[in-house]
């Protein structure tokens, strides 16, 4: 199973963190620190896999963002890379040419999309169409524009 997914920028700023097993804040901070140092120090054209403690780390850079997935040892590395890619595709489909800013300003959406795709560290749904249909359905459930516009800004 997957243990965590981290998104961070070239400068090491964390953009998204998803933990699939319970962990203390201390442990999380340590992992975040280790991952950013480990991954950002990698030379270009190195392989995308790193053995780290008892986990396999699979990472890939998309534009300014690094996606870093920690998986258990028996997991398939190449498929883990494609898990990352599929998530990027899902984000891209939803936001349209997704960029780092979309994820910063709509972090909650990034979480919701991830939740439709993965759950408890396993794949829930691999079909892009199915995931998108759920996301659109939940967007439909949201307030109408008028409702939204009548809300105070602060």
């Amino acid at each position, binding site marked *: 199973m997957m243990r965590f997914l981290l998104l961070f920028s070239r400068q090491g700023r964390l953009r998204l963190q998803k933990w699939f097993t319970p962990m203390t804040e201390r442990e999380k901070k340590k992992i975040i620190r280790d991952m950013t140092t480990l991954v950002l*120090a990698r030379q270009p054209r190195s392989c995308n896999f790193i053995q780290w403690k008892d986990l396999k780390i699979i990472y890939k850079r998309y534009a300014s963002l690094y996606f870093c997935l920690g998986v258990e040892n028996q997991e398939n590395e190449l*498929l883990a890379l494609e898990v990352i890619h599929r998530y990027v595709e899902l984000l891209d489909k939803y936001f349209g040419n997704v960029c780092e800013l979309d994820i910063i300003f*709509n*972090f909650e959406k990034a979480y919701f999309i991830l939740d439709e795709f993965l759950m408890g560290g396993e794949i*829930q749904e691999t079909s892009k169409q199915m995931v998108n249909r759920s996301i659109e359905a939940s967007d439909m459930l949201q307030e109408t524009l008028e409702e939204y516009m009548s809300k105070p800004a602060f």
Partner: protein
Amino acid sequence: MPAVSKGDGMRGLAVFISDIRNCKSKEAEIKRINKELANIRSKFKGDKALDGYSKKKYVCKLLFIFLLGHDIDFGHMEAVNLLSSNKYTEKQIGYLFISVLVNSNSELIRLINNAIKNDLSSRNPTFMCLALHCIANVGSREMAEAFASEIPRILVAGDTMDSVKQSAALCLLRLYKTSPDLVLMGEWTSRVVHLLNDQHMGVVTAAISLITCLSQKNPDEFKTCVSLAVSRLSRIVSSASTDLQDYTYYFVPAPWLSCKLLRLLQCYPPPEDGAVKGRLVECLETILNKAQEPPKSKKVQHSNAKNAILFEAIALIIHYDSEPNLLVRACNQLGQFLQHRETNLRYLALESMCTLASSEFSHEAVKTHIETVINALKTERDVSVRQRAADLLYAMCDRSNAKQIVAEMLSYLETVLKVAILAEKYAVDYSWYVDTILNLIRIAGDYVSEEVWYRVIQIVINRDDVQGYAAKTVFEALQAPACHENMVKVGGYILGEFGNLIAGDPRSSPLVQFNLLHSKFHLCSVPTRALLLSAYIKFINLFPETKATIQEVLRCDSQIRNSDVELQQRAVEYLKLSSIASTDVLATVLEEMPPFPERESSILAKLKKKKGPGAVSVTEMEDGKREGGELNGGGDRGPDSTPSPSADLLGIRSAAPVSAAPTSAGSLLVDVFSEAGPAASSAAVNDEGFLRFVCKNNGVLFENQLLQIGIKSEYRQNLGRMYLFYGNKTSVQFASFTTTVSCPGELCSQLNVQSKPVEPLVEGGAQIQQVLNIECLTDFSEAPLLNIKFRYGGALQNLTLKLPVTINKFFQPTEMASQDFFQRWKQLSQPQQEAQKIFKANNSMDTEVLKAKLLGLGMALLDNVDPNPENYVCAGVIQTKGQQVGCLLRLEPNAQAQMYRLTLRCSKDSVSRRLCELLAEQF
């Protein structure tokens, strides 16, 4: 779809996020966050009941703040309230907050469980999915207790929607992993297995993770899954790439499900039923065949998905270890990957071959690739790939190839030194560094040179925050029955210094520590034993309760009568010291080591000395640090202040080292001498040479029959650099060649001149260079002196020159219009601000020559300012460290009389006078 204002975009949230992004510093960010926290707190506490939207927005802001790395200690209640909202988005945010931020606050868990229970029974699939996600995310025991019996029912109920089934399967898996005792097998089990037959691929994909996990724990109950899995796999493998519609990923049919099926089969031995087995072998052969087919797409996603299935099939073939034909085919396939241009595939091939090497059927086939693997160990740029190559060499080693492999591994181990350097280079926290080096000693102790363990001790002594950790870690490392002598050295030293930091724990009480160290004593060499004896005497100081035991050890014949003089002397002296010295004296003698003065890493020094091929160059080292620095720049602004990766490893450069006093005294002494030298023979001889350089920077300063001195200089602001070139015009060597630069009198407080010593020998016909760095502290009138001494033949030559460093060198030209010029001219009207001289022309009064000189002076030559076009006016600012001095100049030539009138007005009178003096000699 629009990007930023999606769906219910919360404007207040977006504004807050941009505010945070615009914060220029961490302080500003914290200030902004505290302001927001106060605002939210007041809203939550206020009398007015908040509407759902506002609550959602504030909860979302809190979540954002938390994700930035700040602690959040309120808002949980409001988030729980959102769970029971009827509005989907409010509920969704509530669940997200709980998933990310829940703590084991039992009061809240009860409320959360209530909300979950309501949503699970709502029959609204989206609400049910949210609730199931929350259970899976939190996954606590309390939740397992509440829902472990409910979820299987949802999973297998006939009327459950597919999407809910998917969530329920994975939610149950999560609960089973945290609390297997609470998930009871039952009637639902067999129905779960049949989900492998479900029409909906998404349901199969989710369910198979659960089934695999359950099969691992209860293989017998789930063994019917084997034939179901084989037939499902067979259908996928034989399907055309378009059959599975959206479950086809880059022309590969259902790669995730295929891999999961192959993984599930790895929980079981080969199928007993011949038909099932035949079908499976067919599938595996098809997968191997497809690897040889040309790719259907050039995209890396296509080859990744395809190869993922291939690797998983090979893993199954290796797991069965019963089909020689398939094993050899697998091995050949991996052999192809060993030379693939994709690093990822080379890495995975090495990894996979490692398991293949242990099979009797394929061991020989693996061995045929030995040259490729050795080559990988030597040439792969990526250390993780090399590591895999080393693992594989280990796995393929047998009697036939042991000599070759061991030799290759040995040369690989020489990189140990480099490991230590890299660990230090990239160390971001010292506990990591300590861990790494101790690991290195454990794994490759024999290849760890003295420098490596010296360095780890230096670092531990200099960093008090890591001392306790280091003591704990070495104590644990020494527990190993056979540990490397280098580990004993590190252990003895660190426990002797910092054993007290872990002595509170009864498992590492002083006596336990001592016994542990002493158990290694007899196996160690003399130097290590000597080190341990010193550790023992430190123990007596740290822990008086160990005194009797340790004295007994010191007293025994093998110590005080040891044939080794060093050991004997230590035993005798330490025994005496511990018996007669008072505790105060003992404490003073054995005081904790002072921090080491920071110097170059001993390891790096060693590597530099080595300078072998592949040695890390110093620039590379510094590059690494710089890169590390960038990583941190604006990066980690979380609350914990991790040392910047660019920080000096020991971080004590600013703390005064113990040895500071004698060093500075020494340098003071040098200064006294250097002042005395030129002062004695201050008869400066070259005023003429000096004055030639007022308006120019480069040229020959001095020349006689023996020596030529050229200078080149450049100035910026208040700083300058001068290159001196000493040329030996003779064919005989100059010996004891020394140069001294000094600033006489008050000049030493006005001008700072630093020089590097020159080579004492100047060969005949050779030229040597010296660089001076010059800083103008304030305006000055005198010139620094350059004293040169050398032996030519038998005779001592002594020469003192004025260095052409003049105040005008620090001019910055200032352009201004006529009006401004005269306005400022008037402002500088106090009598002492003006200096004026009328003098006879010494040189040609040619306009171009004059202009060139004035430009060389460093001021801006202003056109169209003076009403008389024959006159010249200039403006500039002199930059000194302390202040800026504005200067205006007017030069009025009288061609008939061959005279000039020069006027200077400066904001500082001494500058006016000095410039006037200097310039009067120039025209």
